[in-house]
């Protein structure tokens, strides 16, 4: 009894240390973003919101943010559409030939260092003669987002009863209408989750964008550039804190939508006799 309590106390201590390790560094960002000093050091010098005001007034930063949102929107849309097709093919009842091989290759970019992907794409794109721009960043981002889209959507398609689509065909609908009346509504939560997740992956990416963006800087590339000027550091902290809150909200939303949907076809509650 006593040892059990001691053990569980030891476990909570460990859990606490674990969480502190994960989140204290991240929480320093918002903390110093409200600190009235250019230098990142304790003791704190007093509360201010002037760094946020400076951030809000920074036109260059706005342009970078706008670029990032555009890239994220397009990249998440394309990777989700491609992921949808791949996930459908990989989870169909008649097993695809070479299924596991295809899946491994599709997910390979998860395991290749981004710096390698970035350099490889840079070489390819300049060889082909495409000017470096947001378009080249989007191409790179679709590549790194695709495994995430496939994995999220496959988990949605697995456990999808193939006879639902057959029933629709049987009741007189064409393959195309069957997709819109049955398949799409049932995988919609997965599609939303995939859009949100891939958007975040794209939004976060520095490495690929750094190699491929040319002069159209995205937000992470812009932030990296700003770090060269010590007096601008607090602006970056304010920006970082804002992004932190926004992406946490997005991830929570994606997970909520995914769970909401997971209760659909998977749930099999029976009431009554």
């Amino acid at each position, binding site marked *: 009894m006593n040892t059990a309590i001691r053990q569980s106390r030891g476990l909570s201590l460990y859990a606490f240390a674990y969480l502190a390790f994960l989140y204290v560094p991240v929480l320093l960002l918002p903390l110093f973003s409200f600190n009235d000093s250019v230098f990142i050091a304790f003791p704190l010098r007093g509360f201010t919101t002037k760094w946020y005001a400076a951030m809000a007034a920074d036109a260059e930063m706005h342009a970078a943010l706008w670029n990032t949102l555009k890239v994220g929107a397009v990249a998440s849309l394309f990777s989700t559409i491609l992921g949808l097709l791949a996930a459908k093919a990989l989870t169909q009842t008649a097993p695809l030939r070479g299924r596991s091989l295809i899946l491994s290759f599709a997910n390979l970019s998860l395991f290749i260092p981004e710096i390698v992907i970035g350099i490889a794409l840079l070489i390819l794109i300049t060889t082909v003669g495409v000017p470096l721009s947001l378009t080249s960043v989007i191409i790179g981002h679709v590549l790194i987002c695709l495994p995430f889209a496939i994995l999220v959507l496959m988990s949605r398609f697995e456990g999808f*009863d193939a*006879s*639902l689509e*057959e*029933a*629709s*065909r*049987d*009741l*007189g*609908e*064409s393959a195309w209408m069957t997709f819109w*009346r*049955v398949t799409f*509504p*049932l995988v919609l939560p997965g599609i939303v989750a995939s859009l949100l997740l891939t958007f975040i992956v794209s939004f976060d990416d520095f490495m690929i964008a750094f190699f491929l963006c040319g002069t159209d800087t995205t937000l992470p590339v812009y932030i990296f550039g700003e770090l060269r000027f010590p007096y601008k550091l607090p602006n970056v902290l304010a920006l970082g804190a804002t992004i932190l809150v926004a992406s946490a909200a997005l991830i929570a939303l994606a997970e909520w939508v995914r769970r909401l949907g997971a209760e*659909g*076809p998977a*749930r*099999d*509650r*029976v*009431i*009554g*006799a």
Partner: protein
Amino acid sequence: MGGGGDFIRIDKVTKRFGATAAVDGVSLQIGRGEFFSLLGPSGCGKTTLLRMIGGFAFPDEGAIALDREDITALPPNRRPTNMVFQSYAIFPHLNVRDNIAYGLRVERLTAAERNARVDEALAMIRLQGYGERRAQQLSGGERQRVALARALVKRPKVLLLDEPLGALDKRLREAMQIELRQIQRDVGITFIFVTHDQEEALSMSDRVAVMEKGRVLQVADPKTLYEKPVSRPVADFIGTMNFFAGRMVGISDGKAVVETAALGRMEVSQNSADSFSTGARVWIAIRPEKLLLMSEQSNKQSVQGRILAASYLGDRSQIQVRIPGADAPVAVVAQNASTFQSGDAVYLAWAQDAPLILPE
């Protein structure tokens, strides 16, 4: 409705998956308004055959015609057939009403006509007031009925049912068997029913096709199937049957005379002797309820044996009897057999019309 007609004509249909033929040269004719069952163990090809009739699989060879129209290559949405799936396949994102109305969207009905059809279907399955419920809120039996209504509301020429009662518990299954049969009589639509449950097939069907390894072994009405199976696999699959190895020794008065090690020499009057030549090895088959147990020898032809086990089941007893010369214990079903105990010496007799002769 007893037999035949060629409302549905399945002509030498073969379907291969890789090297194995799931359905192997099957020909069947099914009459209009018939309740027809495909019966067999899992993997016998019955579901594949049903899916080819529904348009979910296509034959490698052969043709399927419905009402004199070749439907072999038509996709499912172009066929006048509807299916009740084994999993019921109720759309989880739609309520009961919308599930039933799903197939009516393509039929260009007015809203009033559509509603009337759905109401009629809900009344048929006695689920009025369930229209707004979702699939997750229905029991297994209710889902089964919704799947049935959703298919029948399309007024198909043929309704295909893929083991629709398999997921239900025993009591509900028996109730649904009666209800299904009743609905089939009311609507008068041809039903093709796939099952591995021989009792279910016998109790519901006008005719049954017994399948094994992709082939049809016998097509007959339930009574014929039970009383005159044409081969050992059919006799084995339908009910319980005792088999005794024998040899054809001749024909007298048109009846086969067979010599068996276990039962001695006997004449077989039940089925035709024509197809057996003298000297051929054959099986003598006798149903357990056609055997008679006696404690003393009578004037009937009988053999001596010893009771291995007796189980009392209330309305009847099941008794296993070991007799010399038989490979396996003989199963006997007797109605007033409570006096028999395990270990007793008994005489086993049979009615003259009990034995069947079957090819080896």
